[in-house]
């Protein structure tokens, strides 16, 4: 444990009134891992993601990215540090073209979005990069379509493309396969695997077969606390987890 973890939370807590949504969570993600956070509905997964990505401010505790304290940073500042996020509900720009969805993110990363006077098409480098990212998420052939023409799975891929365009060192994926058909799910899993080859990824997922097949490590959230952490095998055999969660799954 000599290297600093990419992401670390220390006693991270969020309460809504009397409800403790996230309760003193200590969580670490080492460099390069594909890490799953699971737990039954209402366990606090999304709140946990919101705390890390700056959408919510924690009640107490801290969030550290590559050793740096980013607690309470607004979302755009967290992104600038190198944390990308995708959402459970598809979160794209519907009336922009597929290309523009990604291009905007590339331009944002490169700090060119305050350019008010040169046409967006003149930024050819950014355009090339956006196109190559679209290729990665298998949307290269639809770059010039309106996003309204995309299917559900394609929209999720586009959203992933937007997140990738930010070149984050850590990616948070909230339910990447939610609402997908079986074929779409398997292609998205391949995509997640590909991404995680050179990036650190934390994801939540309701589909247990996905979680156990691709995650390096799994953390189990239950009622706002982490009740178990370990490799898929360790989690599978953890009595507490079986009781709290997998009891009805397996």
């Amino acid at each position, binding site marked *: 444990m000599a290297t600093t973890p990419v992401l670390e939370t220390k006693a991270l807590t969020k309460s809504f009134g009397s409800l403790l949504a996230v309760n003193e969570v200590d969580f670490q993600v080492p460099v390069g891992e594909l890490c799953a956070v699971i737990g039954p509905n209402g366990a606090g997964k999304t709140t946990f993601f919101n705390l890390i*990505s700056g959408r919510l401010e924690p009640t107490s505790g801290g969030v550290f990215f590559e050793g740096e304290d980013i607690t309470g940073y*607004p*979302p*755009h*500042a967290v*992104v*600038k540090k190198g944390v990308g*996020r995708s*959402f459970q509900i598809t*979160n*794209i*720009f*519907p*009336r*922009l073209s597929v290309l*523009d969805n990604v*291009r*905007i*993110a590339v*331009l*944002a*990363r490169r700090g*060119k*979005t*305050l*350019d*008010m*006077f*040169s*046409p*967006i098409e003149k*930024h050819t480098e950014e355009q090339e990069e956006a196109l190559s990212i679209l290729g990665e998420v298998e949307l290269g052939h639809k770059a*010039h379509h*309106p996003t*309204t*023409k995309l299917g559900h799975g394609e929209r999720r891929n586009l959203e992933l493309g*937007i997140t990738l*365009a*930010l070149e984050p060192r850590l990616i948070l994926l909230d339910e990447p396969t939610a609402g997908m058909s079986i074929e779409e799910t398997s292609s998205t899993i391949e995509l997640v695997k590909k991404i995680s080859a050179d990036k650190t990824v934390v994801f939540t997922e309701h589909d247990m077969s996905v979680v156990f097949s691709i995650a390096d490590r799994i953390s189990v959230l239950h009622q706002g606390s982490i009740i178990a952490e370990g490799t898929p095998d360790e989690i599978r055999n953890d009595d507490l987890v079986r009781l709290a969660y997998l009891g009805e799954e397996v």
Partner: protein
Amino acid sequence: MESTSGKKLLSRLMERIPNRFGVTVLLALAVLAPFLVQNDYYIQLCTEILIASLLAISLNFLIGFTGLVSLGHAVYLGVGAYAFALLTKNVYPSMWAGLIAAGASCALLAWFMGVFCVRLAGLYFAMLTLAFSQVVYTVAYYWRDVTGGDDGMLGIPKPEIGIPGAFSISLESFTNFYYFVLIIVTALIFLAWKIANSPFGRVLQAIRENPERVEFIGLPVHRYKLYAFIIAGTLGGFAGGLYSTFQGYISPDLLYWTQSGEIVLMTILGGMYSFLGPAFGAGMLLFIRDTVLNFMEYWRIVVGGILVLLVLFLPGGILGFFEEWASRLSIGGNDGDDTRS
């Protein structure tokens, strides 16, 4: 599938040609207008349409681009107009100084109001802009010493332009003034068009579509909204300055909320998702008003009726509808179908 690339090429051609072509025709018409109408009254109407076009396009930076419905845009028309009048009447009668005063005062005002407004969205944003503009209206209405109160200000000059000692052009003739306004408005609309098609402009559209996601691609949404607010206000201020010298008379009515409503109306009439739509709407509104006023004074019934029908049946606006229709023709499929939803 083989025809896809051909189709794409065709559709891109069709996208570009009508735009270039349309803009060229429009400009040619605008330049020739004084010769075509041959009538001082209509030259003045054309001048007013130009100014209203700038005003509507400036508002569309907020409505169509950033997705912020402002109900207080008349504040810039009014403040720009008063700034021009106060400067040229009381300080120094210069057209350029007056216009710069109009733009600069509105930039400052927009900056100040924007700091508060951009933190809100939706109805709350609309209400706050409305409230701010009504404050300014109240001040203009009661601060008689400076603004002349509800009597307004009379005798606003049309200072001549040129280089002192070298040459000068009088703007007292309707035609000269028309061309002066045409040049200023075209330049500013061109500037607005540049901004709209820049990376910055695309970010504004992204904010309209999904502000939260913009925050999550690492951009501070409030700041971008503020910039849009200031751009809209400044351009609106120039329109106000031009209006002031054009009419030669201004009153607090310019700041009243119904005036703001009219600017929104122009924007929607033409189509808020098309760049020149608001200008088209401005032309239509003023033309309809003028035409109806020849028959009866109740032009608002006609315009209100059109607005109701438009909202119900053509929410994309009139120019927006034609553009969509053209793009559907060019793509040859049903690509345009869901863009309206």
